[in-house]
């Protein structure tokens, strides 16, 4: 008998428009010690399934089917009965470590609470000792001391470790990890995933891993269930699903992800369209509108999971036609019209944006009445960049490295605290107010969050027309231009009258891009433009950005935490650490032959969506968190976390800790790095 057995689980929510069929008939078995990944886009029912197992849905929600734990039926248990199971036999690690811990109690007390509730016989002292032991296992330094600290005294990664310690506290049978690393930096993600694996090994628990990151799945899962519109569409072992996917959706999903380990230069194959509305599902396969293989018979009945191989099932009517076809045969990448600029060498192109010695320091103030300065946060600490016409520069680094501050400094178009910002050859420090306003036309921005980037109270037409009206365009011109822009970003004219809430994330991001392009800027600043989007939608936006660049000769400055996206879209990349650039150069050179230990660690931390490659990789896991930017280490700022430092001779170590390295040319081409002991290391 399986440890956890879910049969024909259905979960339905009420809503204004009708019932939301969030989960429609999922079944799976999970054995002790195994890890199953639930994969799918937002709204596909992954989290809803895990909440149903935990019994955490409110009473309004209707749940049917069967969930058995060691043969014991969980559905229909009262909340009081479920409380005995939750935290004891099934534990959960949530996505947001910030809100998953109670802010008013020390973390040790919260673990003790979990232990005492399920083991009334334990003494407080024993429970405390156990809590300290757990914190040590998950890698919290000075656990005895830190157990008395409050959640706000921990960084995000450390909080997630505490969550994992809490989940392990009662030796659970099952750990459910719902997007456990989505809110964390890649370097921290690698640490946390390692801890999660250790926790699983320690407790022997089964794990349900919910994630949208196919790289994480490739590295850690044994089995995969792919969900679409509330239904499982493919189930199998990791190898089956990644190497022999049978359902077109899985094939599309795996193919649209940009790869970290090689650059194609061609557009990404796209999975067009959006996930369906689970309130009014038409009969037939819900994937039909997006499926290039759709045939008339697909629209009649929704296919059941059928066996493709041993322990590998997929739900598709045309399985026999699909199996064995290569990804690119099914999902064709759109054609890309290349610009004439591509032929012009970089050195001969005009510079559109230039930063020289840019500084942005924030004063650190203390005191209520009389605020005195107690320190300075060096968010951006002297960076030099230049961006040529038609070129994309990617900025990467952990959060807190100063990427976003750099973007905001560019967008403000003010005189920087120190250094110089030149836009199209003009120094922003010398601009009058009117000139600065006029220059805003040349530098526009696309933000991360498609929910927040457009005003929800304005129809699309008004959103896109706003910058035009502001710059005094005539009514008729505005109208023509808005419709032109809608077409440019792949939206239809009738979309102009709708409100942003009627659009999906990807479409909203297109609206944001249309608005940014309205005034024909030369530089587009993109702050995490695709990180909030689902994998399948992401490819469409990336392709659009590339096509626009070729068509309009735009220059992009893009910040993204996903290094694979950066590799795909950028021509050059700059790696930032604590406000400084540590390595910069041509994107392929930097990724294939990184010389700075930080770049190496960063690239090595990104999981690759290919199980064999991913599991064979040697990973460099950085110790600890980013140091506070108000108190960076002396000498080389990276010296406190540098994995290379320990391997150096004592005299060399002293040099690292005393003397800050400057950017130096590496090799022949476009490649510079700031490390005293730069050395190429293969990271794939």
């Amino acid at each position, binding site marked *: 008998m399986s440890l956890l057995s879910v049969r024909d689980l259905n979960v339905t*929510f*009420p809503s*204004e428009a009708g019932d939301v069929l969030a989960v429609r008939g999922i079944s799976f078995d999970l054995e002790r010690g195994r890890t199953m990944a639930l994969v799918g886009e937002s709204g596909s029912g992954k989290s809803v399934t895990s909440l149903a197992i935990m019994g955490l849905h409110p009473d309004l929600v209707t749940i049917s089917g069967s969930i058995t734990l060691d043969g014991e039926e969980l559905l229909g248990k009262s909340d009081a009965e479920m409380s005995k199971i939750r935290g004891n036999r099934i534990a959960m690690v949530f996505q947001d470590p910030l809100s998953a811990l109670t802010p008013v109690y020390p973390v040790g007390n919260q673990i003790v609470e979990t232990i005492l509730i399920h083991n009334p016989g334990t003494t407080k002292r024993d429970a405390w000792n156990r809590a300290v032991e757990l914190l040590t296992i998950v890698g919290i330094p000075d656990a005895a001391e830190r157990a008395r600290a409050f959640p706000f005294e921990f960084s995000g990664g450390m909080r997630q470790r505490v969550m994992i310690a809490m989940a392990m506290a009662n030796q659970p049978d099952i750990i459910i990890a719902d997007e456990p690393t989505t809110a964390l930096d890649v370097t921290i993600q690698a640490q946390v995933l390692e801890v999660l694996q250790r926790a699983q090994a320690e407790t022997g628990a089964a794990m349900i891993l919910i994630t949208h990151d196919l790289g994480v799945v490739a590295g850690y899962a044994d089995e995969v269930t792919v969900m679409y519109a509330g239904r499982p569409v493919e189930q199998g072992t990791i190898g089956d699903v990644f190497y022999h996917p049978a359902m077109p959706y899985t094939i599309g999903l795996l193919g649209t992800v940009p790869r970290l380990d090689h650059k194609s230069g061609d557009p990404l194959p796209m999975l067009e*369209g959006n996930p369906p509305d689970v309130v009014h599902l038409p009969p037939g396969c819900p994937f039909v*509108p997006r499926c290039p293989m759709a045939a008339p018979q697909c629209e009649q009945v929704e296919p059941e999971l059928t066996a493709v191989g041993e322990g590998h099932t997929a739900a598709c009517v045309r399985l026999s036609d699909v199996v064995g076809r290569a990804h690119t*045969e099914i999902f064709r990448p759109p054609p890309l019209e290349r610009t004439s600029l591509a032929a012009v060498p970089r050195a001969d192109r005009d510079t559109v944006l230039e930063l020289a010695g840019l500084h942005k320091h924030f004063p650190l103030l203390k005191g209520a009445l009389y605020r005195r300065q107690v320190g300075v946060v060096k968010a951006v600490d002297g960076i030099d960049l230049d961006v040529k016409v038609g070129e994309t520069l990617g900025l990467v680094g952990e959060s807190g490295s100063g990427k976003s501050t750099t973007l905001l400094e560019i967008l403000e178009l003010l005189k920087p605290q120190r250094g110089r910002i030149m836009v199209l050859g003009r120094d922003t420090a010398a601009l009058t107010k009117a000139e600065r306003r006029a220059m805003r036309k040349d530098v526009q921005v696309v933000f991360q*969050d498609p929910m*927040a980037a457009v*005003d929800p109270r304005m129809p699309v037409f008004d959103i896109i027309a*706003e910058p035009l009206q502001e710059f005094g365009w005539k009514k008729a011109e505005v109208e023509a231009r808005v419709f032109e822009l809608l077409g440019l970003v792949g939206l239809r004219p009738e979309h102009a009258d709708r409100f942003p809430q009627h659009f999906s994330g990807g479409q909203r991001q297109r609206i944001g891009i249309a608005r940014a392009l309205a005034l024909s800027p030369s530089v587009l600043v993109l702050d995490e433009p695709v990180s909030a989007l689902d994998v399948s939608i992401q490819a469409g936006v990336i392709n659009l950005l590339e096509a626009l660049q070729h068509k309009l000769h735009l220059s992009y400055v893009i910040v993204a935490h996903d290094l694979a996206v950066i590799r795909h879209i950028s021509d050059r990349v700059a790696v930032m650490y604590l406000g400084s650039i540590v390595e910069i150069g041509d994107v392929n050179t930097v990724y294939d032959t990184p010389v700075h230990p930080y770049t190496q660690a960063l690239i090595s931390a990104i999981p690759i969506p290919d199980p064999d490659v991913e599991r064979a990789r040697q990973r460099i896991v950085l110790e600890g968190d980013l140091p506070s930017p108000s108190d960076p280490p002396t000498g080389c700022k990276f010296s406190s976390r540098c994995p290379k430092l320990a391997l150096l001779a004592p005299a060399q170590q002293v040099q690292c800790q005393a003397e800050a390295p400057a950017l130096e040319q590496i090799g022949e081409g476009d490649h510079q790095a700031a490390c005293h002991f730069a050395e190429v290391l293969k990271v794939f």
Partner: protein
Amino acid sequence: MDIMELDLLPIEDADQAPKRIGRARLTLRRFLRNKLAVFGLCGIVLLILIAIFGPMLTGWSFDDRDKLSPLKPPNSSHWLGTTQVGRDMLALTLRGMSRSLIIGFAAATLSTLLSSVVGTASAYFGGWVERVLLWITDLMLVIPTMLIIGVLMRGGVSGDLAWVLLALLLGLFGWMTTGRVVRSLTLSLKNREYVLAAKYMGLPAWRIILRHILPNISSLMIVDLTLGVGYAVLGETGLSFLGLGVQAPDVSLGTLISEGAVLVPTYNWVFLAPSVVLVFLVFCINSVGDGVRDALDPSSQSGGVVGGKPRRGKGREDVPAKGTGLPGGIGQAGGATTMSEDNTPQGGAQ
């Protein structure tokens, strides 16, 4: 079938958007589901209609004196009885009610306007503007409002126009709490990306406030306005009761209750009519206020139940599934609700 043929298959347009329920329609529907609020709304409309058209039907004007029948209980000529000097209670109550309503609405509108201006301006501009405005707000929060209004009323206009001054003062002294709430909401909206985008598009500050900030906190302002009417009516009656509000010969519910209070043991109808109207009026206003608040709040329970009656329209509404009932508005400042998946990696940063 060959791959080439497959390409020619028509791919149904994924966003053939189903007819959506408009936001106003949705709010109305949620409001109508709250029976008490609907009752309150009917009550207010009824009272307003009575206040407007009632005097034409009673036969008595509020300042008429029936010298022959002082302090008479309700009878066929005076439906609600008369006062000591023979004024018709019904006519007086109707007049008092319309005064109280006008003062209530005027004062609430004024205070809502003030709170939105001060709140948004202090948060958006920051710096010394914020310091000065906050200083004024805090100062006004600590002074005894009722006392000051009383003193100002004494020294101010007397006679027919006293109610205008009263409405003005009630409005001027009633905006501070909401002003602070508006300020904190604006602080969170100020760093929303669409506000930043507008700024980097070159929009001037006042335009950003009018176009991007105020509309997005409008639900708060509507709730504040409705609840504010109730507070203003109560404030007006309280002051008038103490003789500091509406001046004779003009009447309001407060002056009527004050006159009637001394006669309660013997001639209770003089007290009863205005107090019942006051209680009913404030009850109606507050239930409407609560109803509006729940209708605008996506996390409230006005979303219906599973298997509920199929409703009109085929639109989709993401309220329970994704928590997007109030897109970008005040309801979801955190951006993430418990059930949402795949949130932005650095989301929730406020």
